[in-house]
């Protein structure tokens, strides 16, 4: 169906938009047009200005120059409220779910059903209404569940449900799948399709190529804040799209070669904790990238946390370089050369208000300053070096991390761990929210680390990524390692097959 639609009616039009931040020209004469009922992918490298453009469309930022038209009429979106009044709803990259409220309260925020002229909150009605919305959208969540216990993916679903429940005309989704597992992703796609059939115009920002081609009708590409192209998805192919985004061709080939002779660095034996990890075993070898696939809830992050000394296992054991390894805490794991880069960069990975330099240096401070004394210049210099190695785009090491674009934040979150000179590196969704060009850079970096002798565990929900970066791929299912395949011969199908392994089958 992509491509044609009977006389596309332009719903939202942004033209000649310019936006300047101190030291950065985020948007430079950018434009974008959205038709009713279309799914329109907005693509571009990290820092290209996608989020900024969408913040302008949702009234959060005022453009320095340019025009916004809705239904052909010029409007001024003075704030989020006026954008919402115009029917423009947004789910941002940064989630805003309140953790200490229930799912229902989060969903219905600002629209709570009341009794007695607004004095009395009707709790029963609130929960019923919220549950109806969830069921209608096919989201498998309890309205009464506390939001704080939801996974990042589930929080995202709540956000999306909140926006869709308000009958939007335009729904903006800024990297909605970057923290979703495969099942939730399917759910989201069907949700998006359902809404677009109802005539909602959907703007979809993502760095995942496969999604763009599966879901979108049109694609607009920004580069360095400027408009590059806009066209029907059917008329574009992957290579053309990447060239438009990056301005050059990006190599996308597999590196992987499983080598049985590499020395084992870390041996994990029947590690278990609670219901998440139930006897997982694997080994990491020097110079090898072990990919890790699995469905959401398979226990991948939980296993990594045990290895990193964040949580303590109930049973099972580990050996590191031939010696017993049972870290009492992160400090000990770090000291022994084990680093874990979290999948949740906002809550666990970065200290957003602090500078890039402070973030990158944080876990390395003790190593850099054995006597406990360190000057700011030393920290800045150390950070600058790592910013260069990972190609972090920022005005300098002194700027606050929360002013960086999502992908550049991710690079900082990786840099801080690579900077600890680890010998075992656990990467949890290392390219979440990272553009194709930067992805290729991060892949190359992972490869380089392996070549330099590090043992790497790379957890990812993107199977093409795993196939590309890994030498071997372990698949977790229900808290156990269901199987390990050489990347050369593995396929998406064989990996998925293993992910659905039942617990009984792996209980060898």
């Amino acid at each position: 169906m992509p491509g044609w639609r009977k006389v596309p009616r332009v719903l939202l039009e942004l033209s000649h938009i310019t936006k300047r931040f101190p030291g950065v020209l985020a948007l430079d004469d950018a434009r974008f047009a959205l038709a009713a009922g279309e799914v329109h992918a907005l693509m571009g490298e990290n820092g290209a200005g996608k989020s900024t453009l969408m913040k302008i469309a949702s009234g959060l930022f005022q453009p320095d120059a340019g025009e916004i038209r809705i239904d052909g009429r010029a409007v001024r979106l003075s704030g989020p409220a006026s954008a919402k009044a115009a029917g423009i709803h947004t789910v941002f990259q940064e989630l805003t779910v309140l953790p200490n409220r229930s799912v229902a309260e989060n969903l219905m925020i600002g629209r709570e059903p009341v009794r007695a002229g607004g004095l009395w909150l009707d709790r029963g009605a609130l929960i019923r209404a919220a549950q109806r919305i969830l069921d209608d959208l096919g989201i498998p969540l309890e309205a009464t569940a506390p939001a704080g216990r939801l996974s990042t993916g589930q929080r995202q679903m709540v956000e999306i449900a909140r926006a869709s429940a308000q009958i939007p005309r335009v729904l903006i989704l800024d990297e909605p799948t970057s923290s979703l597992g495969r099942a939730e992703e399917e759910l989201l796609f069907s949700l998006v399709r359902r809404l677009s059939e109802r005539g909602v115009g959907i703007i979809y920002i993502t760095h995942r190529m496969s999604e763009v081609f599966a879901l979108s009708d049109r694609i607009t590409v920004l580069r360095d804040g400027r408009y590059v192209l806009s066209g029907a998805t059917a008329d574009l192919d992957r290579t053309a799209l990447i060239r438009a985004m990056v301005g050059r061709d990006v190599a996308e080939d597999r590196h992987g070669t499983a080598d049985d002779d590499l020395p084992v660095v870390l041996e994990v034996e029947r590690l278990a904790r609670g219901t998440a990890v139930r006897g997982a075993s694997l080994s990491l070898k020097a110079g090898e990238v072990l990919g890790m696939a699995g469905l959401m809830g398979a226990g991948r992050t939980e296993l990594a946390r045990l290895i990193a000394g964040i949580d303590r296992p109930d049973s099972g054991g580990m050996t590191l370089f031939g010696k017993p390894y049972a870290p009492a805490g992160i400090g000990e794991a770090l000291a022994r050369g084990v680093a874990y880069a979290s999948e949740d960069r906002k809550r666990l990975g970065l200290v957003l208000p602090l500078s890039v330099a402070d973030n990158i240096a944080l876990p390395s401070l003790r190593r850099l300053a054995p006597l406990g004394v360190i000057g700011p210049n030393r920290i800045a210099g150390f950070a600058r070096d790592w910013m260069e190695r990972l190609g972090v785009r920022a005005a300098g090491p002194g700027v606050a991390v929360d002013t960086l674009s999502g992908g550049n934040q991710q690079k900082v979150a990786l840099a801080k761990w690579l900077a600890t000179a680890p010998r075992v590196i656990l990467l949890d969704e290392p390219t979440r929210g990272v553009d194709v060009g930067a992805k290729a850079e991060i892949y190359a970096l992972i490869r380089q680390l392996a070549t330099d002798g590090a043992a790497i565990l790379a957890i990812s929900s993107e199977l093409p990524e795993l196939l590309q970066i890994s030498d071997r791929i372990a698949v977790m299912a229900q808290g156990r390692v269901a199987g390990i395949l050489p990347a050369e011969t593995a396929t998406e199908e064989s990996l998925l097959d293993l992910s659905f392994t039942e617990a009984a089958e792996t209980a060898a």
Partner: protein
Amino acid sequence: MTRAAPGVRGPGLARLIRDLLPYAGLLGVIVFFALSSEYFLNLRNFERLVTDSATLMLVAFGMTMVILLGEIDLSVGAVVSLLAVILAQIMEAGAGWPLAVAAVLALGILIGALNGALTVLGDIPSFIVTLGVMAIATGLAYVFTGAISIAIMSEPFLVLFYDARALGLPVPLLIVAVTFIACLAFLDRTVAGRELFAVGANADAARLSGVPVRRRKIMVFAIMGGLVAMAAVLSAARLGSGAPASVPALTLDAIAAVIIGGASLFGGRASLLRTLMGAALIAVLNNGMVLMNVNIDLQYVVKGMIILLAVVLERLASGARS
């Protein structure tokens, strides 16, 4: 340490005002009192102002670190009084002043560490813990003294910690200056100090980066306790006695100084230099209002309003955070 919440429009002006407030405010009150009181602008008054404010300065430096962690210490005023009383009693019992000072310093650090340990290990909000400790300290100070102040007779003690000069400067001022530089160096140039910023802004991320979050918190409360003890020594020397309610507004003034300095009560952002300005503003205000015979109760009203103004500015400047 700028905080730029994504999606916030125009906090620029509020941020500018917040950032200028301690400097502009200080200048403002100086000019105001210089114009309104003939006694204000002279060297003797200025010197008195500085020595009088030493107690506040020391406590405000500690409070900066506590607030940087997103915590608060409400016990400081009461503990200063209690320690001053104990100091006076030790000397009254015949012990020499070095022993008394050392004992009080150790006790202060202990009380601070206790505040921190209860907060961290008991997982109790620090304002509750320190509220309790405040009540206990106040109570004990009255029990120990029977509600009367205990005079300090040790001449060398009174001279050393109030009248004496070194390098041409009053000793209390010198102590403040040295403490300030030490705290500045600690926050800016030590691993532990850098880690405090991370702990305050995002304790979870700090923990995952290998920062011993609990130990850092206890450490900061202990430092606060040490500074409180030093403040008690200076306050006792200035008053020549240990009294159960010797510095009534100290807690309020110290928190005000930090807030006027633009610190975030949620942690992660605070600056010693700006606290210094904030404390100076409060000190000038205290001094000037006394010179102008402003009623003590009215002084509270003025200071309360300044605190609220500073807090509102801080909120506007950092934007509506989710």
